[in-house]
């Protein structure tokens, strides 16, 4: 019982900052502190008037969309190879691909910065951010898709081939439908990570900042903080919706494959 109380207290600790977001987003006062003044939606209206923000959001959406697709494709390759084949140096190769999961993000950021700017003399752009985001999102995609692929009976594709399908159509007709929930889940998670990622984007972003980089700029101006709160509320809301869809799909995928749910994907 005391464990349950502790766990609930821990959840409150986890959610404490997020709960504050909407409070201040709808608070009619420029200072982010208690006590609250009145209710207002003017900070949300202000969001719609900020041109620079719109550009940042567009950039971030573009980056996140491309990142999610690319990292999911790479994730499918790795998860499939990991689950269905034995090949030389398997552990080492998978380890290298998964390494960004534990590598400090600043290392990824500075190493790519050095290569792009100092060695290749290219300029930073959305593409450099995408390159780095794909790198850090791929391990998450793999982790999610591993669940989907490892639950797959390797005989399944062989059975399809035995019944007359080619290797590719066996994949398309049997494997793809079975791992589709995992794929969508991976797309959503990678999208969310990329959309929120700051540490790397700050190093690699070009002339057009991503949304988190733009927010970072706003944090220096106390006057714009309520707008950040409003933006944050929308972002958190959006993230929760995307994650909920991802989770529902993951569970549906498990049910479809007839596997017992073993909890989260990580």
């Amino acid at each position, binding site marked *: 019982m005391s*464990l*349950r109380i*502790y*766990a609930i207290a*821990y959840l409150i*600790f*986890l*959610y404490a*900052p*997020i709960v*504050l*977001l909407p409070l201040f987003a709808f608070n009619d006062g420029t200072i982010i*502190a*208690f006590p609250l003044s009145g209710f207002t939606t003017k900070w949300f209206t202000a969001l719609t008037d900020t041109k620079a923000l719109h550009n940042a959001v567009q950039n971030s959406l573009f980056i996140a969309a491309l990142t999610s697709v690319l990292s999911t494709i*790479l994730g499918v*390759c790795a998860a499939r*190879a990991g689950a*269905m*084949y*034995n*090949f030389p140096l398997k552990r080492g*190769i*998978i380890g*290298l*691909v998964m*390494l*960004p999961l*534990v*590598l*400090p*993000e*600043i*290392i*990824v950021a*500075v*190493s790519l*910065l*050095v290569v792009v700017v*100092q060695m290749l003399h290219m300029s930073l752009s959305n593409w450099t951010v995408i*390159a780095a985001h794909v*790198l850090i999102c*791929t391990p998450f995609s*793999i982790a999610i898709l591993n669940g989907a692929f490892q639950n797959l009976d390797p005989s399944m594709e062989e059975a399809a081939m035995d019944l007359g399908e080619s290797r590719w159509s066996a994949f398309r007709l049997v494997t793809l439908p079975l791992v589709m929930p995992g794929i969508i889940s991976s797309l959503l998670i990678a999208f*969310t*990570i990329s959309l*929120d*990622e*700051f*540490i790397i984007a700050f190093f690699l972003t070009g002339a057009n900042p991503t949304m988190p980089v733009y*927010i970072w700029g706003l944090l220096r101006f106390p006057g714009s903080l309520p707008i*950040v709160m409003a933006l944050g509320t929308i972002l958190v809301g959006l*993230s*929760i919706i995307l*994650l909920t869809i991802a*989770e529902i799909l993951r*569970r549906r995928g498990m049910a479809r494959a007839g596997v017992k749910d*073993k*909890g*989260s994907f*990580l």
Partner: protein
Amino acid sequence: MWEKLTATEGRRGLLMISPPLIYAILMLAIPIGAIVLFSFWTQNFMDVDTTFTLNNYREIIEKPIYFALLQRSLFVSGTVTFVTVILAFPVAYFVSFHVPAHRKSLWLFLITIPFWTSYLIRVFLWKVILGYNGVVNTGLINVGLIDEPLTFILYNVNAVIITLAHAFAPFAILPIFVALEKIDRSLLEASEDLGESKLSTFFRVTLPLSMPGLVAAVLIVFIPTIGDYVTPELMGGAGGKLIANMIQTQFLALNNAPLGAALAIVAMLCVAAISLLFVFLNRRWLRGRS
């Protein structure tokens, strides 16, 4: 050609893994090699002098500021790791052992959600909570526990530790949970059957068996925290800056990429060395017990 490539299972596997592998080599292995190389070069105003030199490393050793930052960073990462893992273990234990099976994924989902929401905004909100007029202070004053706002909870190392511990909480819970889930429940019954109490069963069976998860949790928190510069920047004040802030400054403000690269490598080596030592000691400890 294609037939030859897909002739054996091993080749098919390598072919399948090659896109992510090539990507990781191009975007990770080569760039890391590049910063290693870079750290032996020097910045000469706008140009980079590519003669091999250990000057960057010499500077890091000789100037006490770098050592102090590194020491503080390792202290912060270590403390954050310790606090996070200790606080996370009971939660993972609760979800694994006391939550009914059909509710487990809901709990895990609730635990992971905050982790996926904008890191930047989450860190900033801790400033709101811990600040001079923040939630904690106004709350405590209203209740009457304190007269003056507490100042030791913002713009110092404590604030950095609290914020990081919050940010990495799910990272610690998940691996421990996975390890606990793998424990065959009949082992615990066997232990009690053999005369151990619930508490000694925990220490003699559950804890050793959950060790892989604990180790993973420690590494997955300890290693990335060293590279975080957002939290110290926003929460640390003047006395709470860490090595990552210095790396960032060298690259983006002082335009001394080679020194920044050397700092990044030194930081990474320290973390790697400590992690390996930890894993090694843990193995020895486990072996010593059995």
